[in-house]
């Protein structure tokens, strides 16, 4: 049993849904993403952990303590729901200091902690505003600061990025990453978005129909063949690597086996790269072009999607391309054909 959050043999039934024998072990200080489609039971599991209800079977252990029958206020697990649920009658500062007020923390300490979080999350200018005057991204950061202020044993985030636009989403991902790096608080993050999971998680638990189907690191999931039924990243072209060098605006990412992928990012260290299969060009002979990335390999799998064909290439790194049916036949591609997959550095998304 670790010192993080553990769920042991948890089961609970509702008239039309059940959580079935859930077992999870979230290491202290780790970022765990619970990934599943709508209706898979991920939010119900999160609610059991925070203490919204007592499951009929099983235990929830936090830092070695069985909290299964403790009320939410005794568990020290901060919950940040999908729609933020800021306290509308309170200013941003009062929202962030709410839990500290409830615990009777001295004003000086409250202000110290809220100032630190306000600075960390870039919301110092919002302290005197009320939630109704905040944008989605601002509300999300206030919600996160409020959850962190009480220095919980874990933060439980329910679909934190589902209600923000794409640009804000990337900003919040950066904040989540930075906050986790600085605080090393244990995070359990629920989402249905695979790329979000890949971008943030140390480990991912896949939940479907109320059951945990698999737990692993993003790298482990990204290396599974997409045809396997338990594959979650399948044809998403998720590639794990390390930024080893920078040349002007380009980052050179070592993705293993001596292969370097070029991307545009200012990130350093471990990164997860994503290339949409639509942005991968297949060539048999390797034409000269401005594209910075080339991967040699052979056609391993072909899936007919009607107007398009998905081609899985096995080689230096596994990669999928989505090409038209006409191109596929004109190029006379077969399983085992030697090809070069080409994509631009600008089409590489750094998660």
């Amino acid at each position: 049993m670790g010192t993080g959050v553990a769920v042991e043999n948890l089961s609970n039934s509702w008239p039309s849904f059940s959580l079935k024998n859930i077992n999870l072990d979230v290491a202290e200080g780790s970022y765990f993403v619970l990934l599943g489609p709508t209706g898979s039971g991920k939010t119900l599991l999160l609610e059991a952990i925070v203490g919204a209800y007592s499951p009929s079977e099983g235990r929830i252990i936090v830092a070695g303590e069985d909290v299964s029958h403790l009320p939410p206020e005794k568990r020290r697990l901060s919950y940040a729901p999908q729609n933020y649920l800021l306290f509308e009658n309170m200013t941003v500062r009062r929202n962030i200091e709410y839990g500290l007020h409830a615990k009777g923390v001295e004003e000086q300490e409250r202000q110290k902690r809220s100032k630190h979080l306000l600075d960390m999350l870039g919301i110092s200018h919002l302290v005197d505003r009320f939630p109704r005057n905040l944008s989605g991204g601002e509300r999300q950061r206030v919600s996160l600061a409020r959850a962190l202020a009480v220095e919980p044993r874990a933060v439980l985030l329910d679909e934190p990025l589902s209600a923000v636009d794409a640009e804000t989403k990337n900003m919040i991902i950066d904040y989540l990453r930075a906050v986790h790096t600085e605080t090393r608080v244990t995070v359990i993050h629920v989402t249905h978005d695979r790329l979000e999971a890949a971008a943030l998680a140390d480990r991912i638990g896949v939940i479907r129909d109320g059951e945990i189907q698999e737990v692993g690191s993003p790298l482990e999931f990204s290396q599974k063949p997409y045809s396997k039924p338990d594959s979650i990243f399948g044809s998403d072209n998720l590639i794990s690597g390390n930024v080893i060098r920078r040349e002007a605006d380009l980052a050179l990412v070592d993705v293993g086996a001596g292969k370097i992928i070029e991307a545009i990012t200012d990130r350093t260290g471990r990164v997860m790269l994503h290339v949409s299969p639509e942005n991968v060009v297949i060539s048999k002979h390797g034409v000269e072009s401005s594209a910075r990335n080339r991967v040699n390999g052979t056609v391993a799998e072909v899936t007919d999607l009607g107007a398009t064909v998905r081609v899985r290439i096995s080689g230096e790194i596994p990669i999928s391309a989505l090409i038209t049916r006409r191109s596929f036949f004109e190029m006379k591609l077969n399983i085992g054909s030697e090809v070069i997959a080409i994509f631009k550095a600008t089409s590489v998304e750094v998660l």
Partner: protein
Amino acid sequence: MLALTNAEAVSSIALTIYTSGLTAAVAVVLGIPLGYLLGKYQFRGRSLIDSIIEIPLMIPHTVAGIALITIFGSAELVGAFFKGYGLRLTNDTLGIVLTLVFVSATYSVKQVEEAIKALDPKLELVSRSLGASSTFTFFNVTMPSIWRSVVTGAILTWARASSEVGALFIMAYYPPVASILIWNLYAGYGLHESVSNGVVLSPGAVNVAALMILINLGIFVLFKLVQRKRQT
């Protein structure tokens, strides 16, 4: 206006304002926990309690008066018990308030119940996950979210109580509240004031009624102001 200088009229209007106010206060004290319970939890017997609360809206108020007097009348079970302690539950201020609570507290309970139903149940969960007790959560998160409904319920209860006549005729005819006085004046002296040899026999049912209309209009304006604030 004669009604303003007539002691009987002033006294009955004051009694109406006082008993209706007391009724609204009792309704708030009962309505918050009851409305919270009905709005938040699903439990066996919930529908029965909900129906009992709504009954006063469904039955003629003279019937409500009969029902109350068969329980609280001085010769009846509960009434006799209180009489033993020197408390009259009929024809007394206490009887008026008891009757008014029965026929009008429903508005307070239902307002709170609907407000609680409209609140996201996770709001309280967030608060408690931050370390706040359920009591701290109630007073700092729940109440600030529903207070306008509580005020609206109190105003509606007050307005309904101040207009009650049917049940009071049977349960607490005396001392007369304004609605009963208006009826008495109308039945005894007609619509207008009646003075004989310098003695005021009636300040005029229409005059007392006009005063009550002004007072209730004031309450109605207050209700609308609260409603407007609720929408913003």
